[in-house]
């Protein structure tokens, strides 16, 4: 039992091994290896055009790598498509918010719960009549601080609230790994700080891979940081190590920028 637990703890939730993807002569992902351990918040940073988005779409299963493997809880998922990976427990949010604009906040979360409870037997039942699911959905909204916004449609929500809702939608799927693609993008300082607090509260409960440009948020949240430049991981280390690393400063942070 203890052995099993130990072994389980040692297996990274996400492991990427020698991933490679090229579009013609452009090598977007160049021999990338990366691990996210249980409960770890791993940040992925890199300048624009470094290949972050290409890497994420490969992790999610939207595009296939040319070489390398993606392991999810030790299982090779390289050949699985996006929905199958989501069912295994890969939850994500998008760089550009992806929600159903005509649905209310709570309906978006319900959708996620319904998706998890798969089974095509009760395709004809009414999701809004399912008291247990409604209760669950309210709970998730509460967790991200949107308890009061449940009945407003997405179109009526502020940008920051949509980001929170997107996280609630991802959480309601009960993922094992959360992949957050620039959640702070387009946010004001205040909103960024409240989202940082939200992510802080999720830390340790989920393995999280955070792609983010907001360095304050990254440095505040990350256990480890990987730096991606021209499709290659040039460095992986703790916050302090990344701050001090000369190559990272040169390549990404810029020598003139005080850190």
């Amino acid at each position, binding site marked *: 039992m203890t052995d099993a637990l130990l072994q389980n703890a040692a297996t990274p939730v996400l492991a990427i091994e020698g991933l490679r993807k090229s579009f013609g002569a452009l090598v977007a992902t160049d021999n990338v290896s990366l691990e996210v351990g249980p409960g770890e918040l791993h940040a992925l940073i890199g300048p624009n055009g470094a290949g972050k988005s290409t890497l994420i779409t490969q992790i*999610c299963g939207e595009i296939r790598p040319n070489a390398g493997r993606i392991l999810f809880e030790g299982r090779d998922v390289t050949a699985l*498509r*996006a*929905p*199958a990976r*989501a*069912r295994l427990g890969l*939850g*994500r949010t*998008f760089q550009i918010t*992806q*929600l*159903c*604009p*005509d*649905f209310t906040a709570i*309906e978006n979360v*319900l*959708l*996620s719960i*319904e*998706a*998890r409870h*798969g089974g095509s037997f*009760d*395709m*004809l*039942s*009414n*999701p*809004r009549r399912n008291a247990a699911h409604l209760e669950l959905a309210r709970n998730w909204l509460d967790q991200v601080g949107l308890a009061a916004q449940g009945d407003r449609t997405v179109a009526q929500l502020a940008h920051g609230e949509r980001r929170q809702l997107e996280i609630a*939608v*991802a959480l309601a*799927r009960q993922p094992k790994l959360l992949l957050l693609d620039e959640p702070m993008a387009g946010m004001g300082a205040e909103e960024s700080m409240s989202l940082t607090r939200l992510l802080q509260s999720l830390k340790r409960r989920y393995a999280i891979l955070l792609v983010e440009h907001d360095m304050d948020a990254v440095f505040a949240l990350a256990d480890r940081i990987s730096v991606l430049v021209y499709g290659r991981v040039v460095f992986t280390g703790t916050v302090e190590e990344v701050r001090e690393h000369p190559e990272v400063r040169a390549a990404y942070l810029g020598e003139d920028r005080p850190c």
Partner: protein
Amino acid sequence: MILLIEQVLNGLQYGAMLFMLASGLTLIFGIMGVINLTHGSLYMVGAYCAASAVLQSGSFLVGIAAALAGAGLYAVVIELAVVQWLYRRDHLYQVLATLGLILFTNEAVSLIFGRRPPLMDIPPFLQGSVTVLPGLDYPLMRLAFIGVGGLVAVGLWLLVNHTRLGMLVRAGADDREMVSALGVDIRRLYTLVFGLGGLLCGLAGVMAAPLLAVEIGMGERVLITTFVVIVIGGVGSIRGALVGALLVGMVDGLGRAYLPQGLQMLLPPSVADTLSAGLVSASIYVLMAIVLLVRPLGLLPARS
């Protein structure tokens, strides 16, 4: 007055048929973004299956089952074999492929069912007519058609707005990526929607078979009108398809009755006859043009 009511009923019946075809087409076009020209062929397949099954079994119920099964299965086959590879392609590819499918279906139907148009009688329990008003007897079969159209409208409303399936379909229309990230295989969902469209075509086919000529090419004729209906109603919207179908049905029914009369009062008879014949067949396009001038997205677009 009698003429007016009769033409309104005719318009309703035509509208009911158009709605059965347009509701499926608008879902496929609006949600999956596919221009599906084979939609009319599915209706033809439904009518042929119904006519042939009734001929062999003598039972209208068997005819209904055959039409639903034939058109529904054929829709699923088409989706899996051809259409699903075209979702990410330009509309032109979809038009070319589904146009090819029309030709293929026409040939396949004449190979399987023969060149001679099958005849289908009105089933005994729907024969005869009902006195709607004193002096106005209306065929029972046509009234049944209107009733089935109403049932389909209510059923679809329930399905789309109050079921898990409907929720997933609406979400898939809004946001394909999110639904896929939640672990729902959107390809299976699309196949399901396509099959549903096929079922509705089959239903329209079996209801129309006793009233209209079952023949090769019957699908293409109604297809254009069906596209007019969904453009008027707003692409992707079932409510829009309902309103569009009723409008087109009414304009067609009333136009046929009153346009010639009206023009004869204004113009010399020879001019009036030619003009009204042209205007009657053009009336639904005029209606579409007017609607698009006022509301470019149609009357009730899925998203405003």
